């Protein structure tokens, strides 16, 4: 047992616990908070995978931005405090199907090994990412910016009150 494994186990537990909490908690706000736990755990895992830049982005975007958006969403809509119950039958069916799915995939990944690790990723990680982004992936990068813009505009239009429509 080395330190690396200990860290991984800790992060693994944080991530999964966050997920399970999110599923099982009853209040919506608590769910979102549990999710933050998961996001942070994942960020940690990223660091372990020599992806510091992605980890930082993860914390910023997910734990920060998206969580905030979700909280806004919750505040802007009315919620009965408790999450309404879903029928056991439905849950059962979904659970069975997902378990089956889990075992099939698990069977596939259990002993998966695809070759030697990349060992240079942690060296100047952000530089490497930046180089790749602005050389090979410059066009997708620009496209993503357009997508973000469109999403922004779209979100505003959608969320805006449709006053003219109501008046008509």
């Amino acid at each position, binding site marked *: 047992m080395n330190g690396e494994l200990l860290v991984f186990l800790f992060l693994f537990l944080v991530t999964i616990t966050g997920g399970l909490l999110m599923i099982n908690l009853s209040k919506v706000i608590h769910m979102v908070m549990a999710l933050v736990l998961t996001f942070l755990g994942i960020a940690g895992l990223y660091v372990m995978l020599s992806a510091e830049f992605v980890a930082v982005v993860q914390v910023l975007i997910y734990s920060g931005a998206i969580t905030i958006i979700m909280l806004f969403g919750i505040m802007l809509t009315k919620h009965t405090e408790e999450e309404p119950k879903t029928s056991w039958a*439905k849950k059962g*069916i*979904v659970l069975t*199907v997902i378990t*089956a*799915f889990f075992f*099939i995939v698990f*069977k596939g990944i259990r002993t998966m090994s695809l070759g030697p690790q990349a060992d240079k990723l942690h060296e100047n990680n952000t530089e490497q990412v930046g180089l790749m982004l602005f050389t090979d992936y410059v066009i997708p990068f620009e496209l993503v910016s357009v997508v973000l813009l469109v999403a922004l505009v779209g979100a505003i239009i959608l969320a805006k009150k449709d006053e003219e429509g109501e008046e008509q």
Partner: protein
Amino acid sequence: MDVVWLIPILPLLSFLIILFTRPNLYRKAGIVGTIFTGAAFGCALLVLFSNFAEGNQLVEANWFSIDSVVLTVGVEVNPLNALMLVIVTLVSFLVHMYSIGYMANDERIATFFGYLGLFTFAMTGLVLSPNLLQLYVFWELVGVCSFLLVGFYFYKPEAKAAAKKAFIVTRIGDIGLLVAIFLLFWQTGSFELDVIFESVLAGDITPSMVTLIAILIFIGAVGKSGQFPLHTWLPDAMEGPTPVSALIHAATMVAAGVYLVAVMYPLFSSSETAMTTVAITGGFTAIFAATIALVQRDIKRILAYSTISQLGYMMLALGAAGYTAGIFHLTTHAFFKALLFLAAGSVIHAVHEQDIFKMGGLRKQLPITAALCLIGCLSISGFPLLAGFFSKDEILASTYADGRYVLFTMALLTAFLTAFYMFRLYFLVFAGNESSKAKESSRIMLIPMFILGVLSVVGGYIQTAWFGTFLGDWLETSPYPITVDHPTAPIWLPISAILLSLAGIGLAWMYAKKLRYGERLNPVHRLLFHKYYIDEFYRVTIVKGTRVIGYFWMYFDRFIIEGGAQALIGLVKRMARAGSDIQSGQVQTYGTVAFSGLVVVLLLIAVIGGYF
């Protein structure tokens, strides 16, 4: 010999002519029918006499074929059926004539004569059959004619029930015969009587199979001849017009059972068990029916039970190896029983009443009927020198010679009972005080009765111990191997028979004097009056039982099978509804279904690809 063909054809023609010209003929139908059956009778006489001279004849033609087996139809003339032909056509002819008078006031007289023609056709066809298939065809046809004629007064509920009963009960017997025919066919490969007898005598059929077949055939005879336990239809069949009772239910059709046993005699005589069965059934029926006849009140029912009893007598004779005796009694019985029925018809025609306790003293109003009836009664009672005396004597002799003394005692006792109940009837109807106004029947009804009366007197002289055994000798010339023995009885036998019948007559006279109206109703009497409750027994067991089974299966059908089908349909419907419920419009459900599908595909790939 060519005229043989005409014998069944003539009555058939009569039937067809009447059938198609019914509305025009109306009352003339009787004349048409009488002429045709008269002609048939003439032909039958010709055939009879030519049989004396030329011997037996057999003509056959192809009917149709099952693969290589060619089924034939044909006519056969041998002593037995030549005799039967004469009896059938004669009685039929006389009954036709009688009916012209008896049925004169009935609207449906033409239909009546049509049926009579059809019956005569079927009966002669039956008698002429050289093979079992043809015999069975006509066997059923006479049954249906009987059914039609019993139900002639179709608007009477009793007639309806009686007709149905007559058909169904005899049908039960017929099925026995049918099965026997099937078995014989697969044993011998033929329906032809001569082929069958050859293989029976050659021992091609195992003895147990012979017994089985013989008993099955006998079941057929039991049904038709009203033997116990299938006798119940015959008394009820008296709901038909009286001439019908005389023709079908006394002289001809019911005798067909006896005739059948006689025809199949080589088969029966090969099986001791079968012979015993025939004898015991016959003997039992004889005494059984006679006891019932003792207390009945309806004039026709008494005669019906008497018929059953006498048919039992004939069966007894056949079973006791008295071939000649059986046939002999069949002949004489046809004459005197037809006479008695016609006389009863004459009485009923005159007083419109069938209860003998409501009649009396009719001798004065109906002198000729009374005289003829007396002849009939004497003849059936075995009064010396009348026809019945000789035939009954012959039966007693062969039973005695057979050695089964229980049966012999039964026969003697039946002779006594017969004399008693016949004269009880005679005295109650004709003797005593006049109770009602009545007019003697017309000449057209009396002439047939007269002819039958004459025959009832002289018919016995064809076979007597004194003048010669003409009938037996002649029957022996049959083409089939039958053993005709001439039993010699000790002299005390006829004497005791005479004494018994005289005792019966005397007792009946005393009885009639003592009791004019009503009778004591002690338990025995009640038991007899209700015919041993056999009808009630059948109604409770067989009829009810069949209906219960029917209801059981009906509810089974309705609830289990139909219900099962409905449940299946329900299941499919529920599945369909479940399928449509999935289309709820909720994305999550769609997602679940889609994802399930994905998982199923993955599973399939994993399993088929061998990843597990």
